[in-house]
């Protein structure tokens, strides 16, 4: 019983990071309708930017914010410089996936060329151990969880209470209609890529803090559970991705407590395949999202 409670605690902590990443992934997909596989590599870029800034002696949480914003800027450049021109040329979705896969690999090996292929670490940043509800968590895990909650709340308020959020939701639901209503959809798209990149970079740094050692493949390994979370919640659905992240985090943490941890990511894989075959729109997918997904 104690094992179960403890592993759920770890799952929630891991799920917070997952949810951060998955929300960014799904937000950008929902609005620009482009599946961005280079998202994982952008996450590694974030982690390595964090490493660089820690080397300058900055505070870890400040590093997380600056790193996030920097990756957000990279993400906008990626959209403006590569994705948008190709979409304008009428490239098929499959071609775009290959382009983002390639871009991801280029980014990964830029990291190798600059920082080398070696395993890196932020050092031990976990802080004091806290006990509550039968969970034993580190301060870092709790702070990351709190940051994730604040960001999710902020995103919720942005999407529901502001003009910009309404424009974003409109663009996601029907781009053409949104444009004819006077919404500057390409600017909305830029904003979505920026926010997605920011979530991505912050998730990358948060991940690097919690797992303690990483190399340039950090993000592409983490991409699978993130995609699982996004697919579970319904691709393009930010709220779905939040819940999906928590569910995937808890399920894989519990399963690795009772089963060989080496198979932990198999759970994520199973979720993707089952959801795809049984309910491709995800648990919370709307009918609009379904129309987007089914060919």
């Amino acid at each position: 019983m104690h094992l179960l409670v403890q592993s759920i605690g770890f799952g929630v902590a891991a799920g917070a990071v997952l949810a951060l990443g998955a929300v960014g992934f799904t937000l950008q997909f929902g609005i620009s309708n482009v599946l961005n596989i280079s998202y994982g590599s952008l996450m590694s870029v974030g982690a390595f930017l964090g490493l660089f800034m820690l080397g300058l002696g900055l505070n870890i949480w400040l590093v997380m914010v600056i790193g996030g914003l920097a990756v957000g800027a990279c993400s906008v450049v990626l959209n403006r410089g590569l994705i948008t021109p190709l979409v304008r040329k009428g490239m098929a979705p499959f071609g775009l996936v290959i382009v983002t896969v390639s871009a991801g690999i280029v980014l990964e090996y830029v990291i190798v060329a600059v920082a080398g292929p070696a395993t890196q670490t932020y050092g031990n940043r976990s802080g004091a151990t806290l006990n509550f509800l039968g969970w034993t968590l580190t301060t870092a895990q709790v702070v990351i969880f709190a940051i994730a909650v604040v960001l999710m709340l902020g995103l919720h308020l942005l999407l529901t209470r502001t003009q910009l959020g309404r424009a974003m939701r409109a663009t996601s639901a029907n781009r053409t209609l949104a444009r004819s209503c006077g919404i500057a959809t390409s600017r909305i798209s830029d904003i979505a890529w920026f926010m997605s990149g920011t979530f991505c970079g912050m998730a990358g740094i948060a991940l690097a803090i919690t797992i303690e050692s990483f190399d340039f493949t950090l993000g592409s390994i983490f991409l699978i559970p993130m995609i699982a979370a996004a697919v579970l919640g319904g691709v393009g659905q930010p709220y779905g991705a939040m819940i999906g992240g928590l569910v995937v985090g808890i399920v894989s943490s519990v399963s690795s407590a009772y089963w060989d941890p080496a198979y932990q990511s198999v759970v994520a894989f199973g979720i993707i395949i089952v959801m795809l075959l049984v309910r491709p729109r995800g648990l919370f997918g709307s009918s609009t999202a379904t129309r987007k997904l089914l060919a």
Partner: protein
Amino acid sequence: MANLAYIVVIAAGAYTYGILTLGPDTGNGGFQQYVLGYRLPFFVAVVAAAAVGAGVGVLIGVTGLKRIRQDYQAMVMLVISIMAATVIGAAPSFLGGEPGLSLIPNPFANLSPVTGDWAYVAMVAFACVVGYLVMRRFTSGPMGRALRAMRDDEHAAAAMGFSVIKMRLLTQAVGGAFGGVSGALLVAFIGGWSPGAWAYVETLALLTAVIVGGMGNDFGVSLGTFVIAVLLLQGVQFLPQIRSHTGLTEAIGWMTLGIMTIAFLWLRPQGVFRERRPRYGQPAVGNAAGGEVAEGHS
């Protein structure tokens, strides 16, 4: 269909060849573990690798039958290939786990190293020619016409009475068999195989070969593979080594590969050699260029 999991088929062929020729895993001091462990002759093992490759290809193809968006499907394929490597790496007693298989016998091991290498080159060249001819039969005959029709417009092909599902799976099986053989030939030469050898970046190398050479042109794809494999992935080894930067040359190779893929998709999506469309009689009036635009929609 976009098969980003093709590397899994190659890996399946390589592992099949490995466990069928290595002999029991108690040999060699028992430092590696794997299932089966027969000592079959080279050609039997290659045929088995083709069969397993075909089987795995069909299995992957089944997940692709579900009618979902192209890019979503591509993502699933990518996930399959990453996960297959993870699962095999996590199970040490199945196919050697993360360290993989080593000491896989070379069919020309009893020749001197140089003669053996050239004999191997000759054999692979022969296999390529045979493969090319088989592929020509497959893509130029009535079957090839049916496949083209299916690719360009599935509904129209189905309306003409072709069984789209059967044809898709058949294509997967044929492609899988080729992948299986290529995996077997590769592993018999390099002598070892592990999950690290078929990370998903390797799939990109295959895709780049196809894109650079020209999709739908057998000759172009063969040439593209040659350019990618020989010039890019091996050629970077001849760049001057910079001692302070380990892995830099490899990084340059992969970066060039990625940039090349993007550049070709952007500037010349049809590849160096475009697909030559066989002409059947007179083209329909006003629809001569119709085939070119059909690719874009999903």
